[in-house]
C-alpha cells in the first residue's frame, strides 16, 4: 500500500509563489518534482481553485503537505449520482 499511488487534490496558496516562478503551473510542477520525480500531474486548477491534482503515494502526499505554499492535500474522493 505504501508505494501504491492514488490521486490527490493539492490546494496551493497562490500568493506564496516564490518570485523565481512566473507561471503558477511551473511552481506546481516544481513542488511536485520536489517530492517525487515520477508522480504524474493530472490537472491544474485556476478558476475555482488554485492548485493541481496528481497521483501520489501516501508518503509523497505527506511530504507535499509540508511544502511551503501548500494549503491542503486532499485525497480524491468518489461522489455518486443522485
Amino acid at each position, binding site marked *: 500500500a505504501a508505494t501504491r499511488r*492514488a490521486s490527490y487534490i493539492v490546494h496551493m496558496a497562490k500568493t506564496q509563489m516564490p518570485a523565481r516562478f512566473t507561471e503558477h503551473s511551473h511552481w506546481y510542477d516544481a513542488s511536485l518534482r520536489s517530492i517525487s520525480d515520477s508522480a504524474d500531474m493530472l*490537472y491544474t486548477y485556476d478558476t*475555482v481553485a488554485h492548485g493541481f491534482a496528481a497521483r501520489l503515494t501516501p508518503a509523497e502526499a505527506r511530504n507535499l503537505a509540508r511544502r511551503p505554499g501548500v494549503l*491542503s492535500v486532499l485525497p480524491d474522493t468518489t461522489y455518486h449520482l*443522485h
Partner: protein
Amino acid sequence: TTRTPEFLGLDVADELVPESSTTSDVVVGVLDTGVWPERNSFDDTGLGPIPAVWKGECVAAKDFDPAKSCNRKLIGARFFSKGYESSMGPIDESHESKSPRDADGHGTHTSTTAAGSAVSDASLLGYATGTARGMALRARIAVYKVCWTGGCFSSDILAAMDAAVNDGCHILSLSLGGGATDYYRDSVAIGAFNAMESGVLVSCSAGNAGPGAATLSNLAPWITTVGAGTIDRDFPAYVVLGNGKNYTGVSLYSGKLLSSTPIPLIYAGNATNSSNGNLCMPGTLVPEKVAGKVVLCERGINARVQKGMVVKDAGGAGMVLANTATNSEELVADAHLLPATLIGEKAGNVIKAYALSDPNPTATIIFGGTKVGVRPSPVVAAFSSRGPNAVTPEILKPDLIAPGVNILAGWTGAIGPTGLTTDSRRVEFNIISGTSMSCPHVSGLAALLKEEHPDWSPAAIKSALMTTAYVTYPGGDGILDIATGQAATPFDFGAGHADPKSAVDPGLIYDLTPEDYLEFLCAIDYTSLQIAAISKDRNYSCDARKNYSVSKLNYPSFSVAFATASGSADKGATATVVHERTVTNVGPPATYKSTATAKVDGGEVQISVEPAVLNFTETGEKKSYTVKFTAPSLPSGSSGSGRLEWSDGKHTVASALAFTWT
C-alpha cells in the same frame, strides 16, 4: 420533461420571459454522465448565435463529432476522466465512451430537464405523453462529463467546474454528491464557492438517503441544495387478487398484458433455494415453482428492474414488487420488461399474507396508463434526504424542493430505459426519480431568473426561489411527507416547493456577497489556511476583535439552535437567540409588515421582529431587521418549525424557521 412545466405554472402563454423578446445568453453547465446529442431536446431552432463571450467548446472524440453534435443549444461538451482512470484504471472503451457522449442516460436526462428544447408528442412507451421541454427553454446547455461507470471523482469534478466557470456558464447543475464533510475538504463546496464568487449559481441535489434525519449532501450555504417532491402525475397499475381485493401500485410496463382473470400467485420466499430469495436476486428463483405465475418479490439490494428480469428469466408471468419499511408508501415507476407493478409496504404485507394463507392464491395486474391531476401533490419523496445540516446545523438545508419523482426527460441511445444489458429497447425519453431530477429543475428555473434579472447575484436568485416557495396546498393544509403521512417540516423541504411564477417578482431578496460567506467561515472557526483553501488563497484572516456568528449570515431561512438547559436548577429558564437579516427591495417602493408563527411540541417559541414594519422608498434600498427567538428549555432532540413573512399586500416574502434543542 413533460407535465412539470404545467405543474410549475410555466406553460401559461405569458411565459416568465416572453419568447420573442429576448435571445437567451444564459448558459447552464451540467456536470454529469455526458450527453446524447442526437436527441431532439437539443434542437436549436429559434436560438440566436452562440453568445460572443462564450469560451467553451465541444471536444472531438471517437464517437463525438462536434460539427454534428453541437449547435446553438448544445454549445459545450467536455469530458474529465484523469482522476477516474488514475483510481479505477483505463476506461474500457468497449463499455464506456471516452468522450462527452452519455452511455448512462443520467446526464441526458438532467441536461434536458434543465434547458431542453420543446419536443412535442414525447412519451415513454406511451406513458407521460406531452410536449417535453426544459425549464429554461431558451437557455444554452454545456455538458461536462465527470461521472463514469465507477463513480464521479472529485479531481475530475473540480477540473470540470474550473472549465465550466472559465467557459462562461452562468448556472452549474450537479446531480451528484458525497457524504457530509467540512467545506474545505469538499471539492464541490470549494469549486462552488469560487464559482459563486464569479457570479455563477451552483445548484446541487440534496441526496437520496432519506427519510432519515441528517442525510443531506452538498450543504454549503453558497450552494442551492434541492430536495425532491412528487408531481400531480401517476402511473397506476392495479393488483387484482383472486379473493376479489385489489391494490394500487405503479408501473410503466408496456407490452403483452396478463389475462384479466387472476393466475397463480406465489411468494418468492417460497420459490427459492436461497435465504434471501424473497428479494428475487439473480439465480435465486426455482423455475419449476414460478413458471407461468405472478411472483411477489420484496425490495432491497438489487435494482427493481433487475428483480423483474430475474422473474422473467425464471419463467414467471408477472411480478408484484412490494416496498419494505425503508420505502414505506413511496412508489416510483419503472419500465419493466414483464408485466409488473410496485406497491406500498402496507399493500405488500396484505398480499403476502394472502399468498401465504390462501390454498390457491391468484392475482393479475391491470395497467392504468398515465393519470394527471393527482392530489395531494407535491408530496415530499421518502427518498429525499433530510436535514438538519450535519456540517452547520444553524444553516437550514435543504433549501427547497422541486419535482423529482417519475420525471420524464431525454435519454441515451446506448441503453434501454431500465439500464439492463438485456433491455434491447431504445427510447428517446425515460422516466426516473431522484433528487438528481429535482436539481436540474431548479437549475433551469435559476436560468430563467437569470434571464429576467441578469444583474442578480447567485444568492439573490436563490433567495427569490426560496422566499416565494410554497409550503401548503391550495386548501391550506401543509405539504405532506410521504414517509410519515404527516405534514412535512422545513427539515424535509427547506423553504418549500419552488414556485417560479412568484420567484420572478419576489419583492425582497436576501443578498449575500463572497465577503459575507467568508465571515460565515470565521463564524464556524475556520483557520486562515482553511479559508485560503476554499477561497483561492484570498489572504483573508478573521478579525479576532470581531464577533462572528452564523446567525448573522443573511440566509433566506432560519435554523435556530437552542441549548438544552443542563442543570435542573434552570429547567424553567428561557433562552434567547437573535438573528440579523438585511433585505433588499427589488420591487417598487412599498411598506412591508412582518408576521411570524411557530409550532413546537412541548413548548412555545416567542418571536419578536424589530422593526416589525419596513418602509422602502425606492428599488434597491436595503433595510435590516433582527428576529429574537425566546424559548423554554426543552429536551435535547426536540424540534419545531414556523414561518416569518414580510408582506406588502402584493408580495409575500417568506422564510422558513426551524428550531432544534441540543
